[in-house]
C-alpha cells in the first residue's frame, strides 16, 4: 500500500523541517547561550568542561515546526494536540531549567500536559480510542474514565523516565531516536491492520524522531550541547501523547522498559521523588583512571548506569553504548509486541 502524494509530502515535511531547524539554528543558538553564560559543567569528564544548556527551547521549536507543517498540509486535531503538549511540557521544563522545580512539584505540574488530550477528545471524539490493545489477547472494553486517569498518570511517568535517563552525552537523544522508531513501527503495523487508518497518527511521530536524530549530532560524546529538562521532559510527554494517539500504548511502554526500570530503581532506592541535586550519595563517581565507577556504598541510589558499572568501570562513551544497546533490545521487544498485537 503506497502512500499518496499528499501523504508523502506530509511525511517529508514532518521530518525535514525539524532537521532544518536544528541543524541550521543550533550553532547560533549555542553561541547565544555561551554569550549569556548559560553553561553547565560536564561532570563526567576528567578535565573541567563547560557545555551550553539548555538546548531544549530550540528542540521545542523544531518539533512545533514539524507539527505545524503536518497541520498545514492536512488540518487535523492530532498535530494540534502534539503542539499543545509540547508547549506545556516545554514550558514546565524551561521553568525547571531556569528556576528549578522540586521532585514532587514537577510531576504534579506535568499532569497538566494531559489536559489538551482530554479536552480535544471530548470535543472531537476522534483523537484516541479509550481501550488498551494487548498483544495476543485482544483489547479491553471502552472505559473513558479509567483511560483518562491512565493518560493523566502517563504524562509525568513518561516525562520523568526520559528526564532521569538524561545524564550522559548522547544518552537522551539516542534513546529518543530509538524509541521513536519503535513507536513509529508500531503505528505502521496498526495502520496495516486497521481499515481507514489516519496516516497523520504516523506523521505526527516524525518531528520527534527527526529532532532527536539531529540533536544527537550535538549531544553525542563529547557533547556540544545539553538539552536540559526542557528537552527531556518535552520528549517524554510528547512520546506518551503520540503513543496514546497512535493506539500503541503497551508496545510503547515496552520500549521504555530501560527508562522505567531506571526510574523505578531510583525511586525505590531513594524512597521517593528526589532531584539529582538533592542526592547525598552519587550513584557513580569519576575515578583517577578517567573512568566511571559504581559507588559501592549500599545507600547510594541505584540507577541503570550504576548497575551496568557494578564490578567493571567504563568510560562515558561505553556507558552510553551499553544503555543504547539495552534500548535497542527493548525496542526489538516493543516491535515484537506491536506485531503480536496487530499482525497475529
Amino acid at each position, binding site marked *: 500500500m503506497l502512500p499518496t502524494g499528499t501523504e508523502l509530502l506530509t511525511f517529508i515535511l514532518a521530518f525535514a523541517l525539524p532537521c532544518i531547524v536544528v541543524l541550521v539554528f543550533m550553532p547560533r543558538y549555542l553561541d547565544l547561550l555561551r554569550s549569556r553564560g548559560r553553561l553547565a559543567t560536564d561532570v563526567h569528564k576528567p578535565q573541567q568542561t563547560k557545555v551550553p544548556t539548555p538546548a531544549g527551547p530550540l528542540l521545542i521549536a523544531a518539533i512545533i515546526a514539524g507539527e505545524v507543517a503536518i497541520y498545514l498540509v492536512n488540518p487535523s486535531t492530532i498535530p494540534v494536540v502534539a503542539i499543545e503538549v509540547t508547549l506545556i511540557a516545554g514550558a514546565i521544563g524551561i521553568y525547571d531549567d531556569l528556576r528549578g522545580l522540586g521532585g514532587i512539584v514537577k510531576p504534579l505540574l506535568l499532569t497538566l500536559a494531559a489536559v489538551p488530550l482530554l479536552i480535544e477528545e471530548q470535543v472531537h471524539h476522534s483523537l484516541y480510542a479509550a481501550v488498551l490493545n494487548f498483544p495476543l*489477547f485482544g483489547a479491553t*472494553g471502552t472505559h473513558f474514565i479509567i483511560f483518562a486517569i491512565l493518560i493523566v498518570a502517563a504524562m509525568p511517568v513518561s516525562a520523568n523516565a526520559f528526564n532521569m535517563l538524561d545524564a550522559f552525552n548522547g544518552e537522551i537523544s539516542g534513546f529518543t531516536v530509538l524509541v521513536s522508531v519503535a513507536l513509529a513501527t508500531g503505528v505502521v503495523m496498526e495502520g496495516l491492520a486497521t481499515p481507514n487508518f489516519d496516516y497523520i497518527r504516523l506523521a505526527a511521530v516524525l518531528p520527534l524522531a527527526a529532532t532527536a536524530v539531529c540533536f544527537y549530532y550535538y549531544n553525542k560524546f563529547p557533547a556540544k550541547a545539553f538539552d536540559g529538562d526542557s528537552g527531556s521532559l518535552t520528549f517524554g510527554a510528547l512520546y506518551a501523547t503520540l503513543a496514546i494517539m497512535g493506539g500503541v500504548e503497551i508496545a510503547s511502554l*515496552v520500549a521504555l522498559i530501560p527508562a522505567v526500570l531506571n526510574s523505578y530503581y531510583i525511586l525505590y532506592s531513594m524512597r521517593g521523588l528526589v532531584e539529582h541535586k538533592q542526592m547525598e550519595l552519587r550513584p557513580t563517581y569519576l575515578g583517577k583512571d578517567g573512568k566511571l565507577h559504581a559507588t559501592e556504598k549500599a545507600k547510594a541510589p541505584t540507577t541503570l548506569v550504576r*548497575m551496568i558499572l*557494578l564490578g567493571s568501570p567504563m568510560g562515558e562513551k561505553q556507558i552510553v553504548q551499553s544503555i543504547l544497546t*539495552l534500548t535497542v*533490545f527493548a525496542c526489538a521487544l516493543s516491535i515484537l*509486541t506491536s506485531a503480536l498485537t496487530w499482525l497475529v
Partner: protein
Amino acid sequence: MRPLDTDLRPDVVGMSRTNIYGLMLIITIAWLLILAESYLFIAVIRPLGPSIHIGPLPSSFAKIILTAGLGVLWVAVMFTLDILYSRRGRTPT
C-alpha cells in the same frame, strides 16, 4: 557484541558483557511479565462480574484489587531481580 573499547582489558570487557546480558535478561523478564499479566487481566480479571461502571461494588472492588495486585507483582519481581543482580555484580570486599 564488539569489544566496548580497545583500552579495556579482556576480563573487564567480559564482565561488562555479562552485566549487559544480565540487564537484557531483566528486560526480557519485565516484558514476559507484561505479556503474562495481560493474559491474566484479559482472561481472568476482566470477566469477573459485570462492567465496573454498572456492577455492584464487590465485583468492581475485586477487579481493582486484582489489577493492583498485578502491578505489585511486577514491582516485586523487579525488586527481587535488582537484589540478585546487585549481589552478583558487587565486588567482594
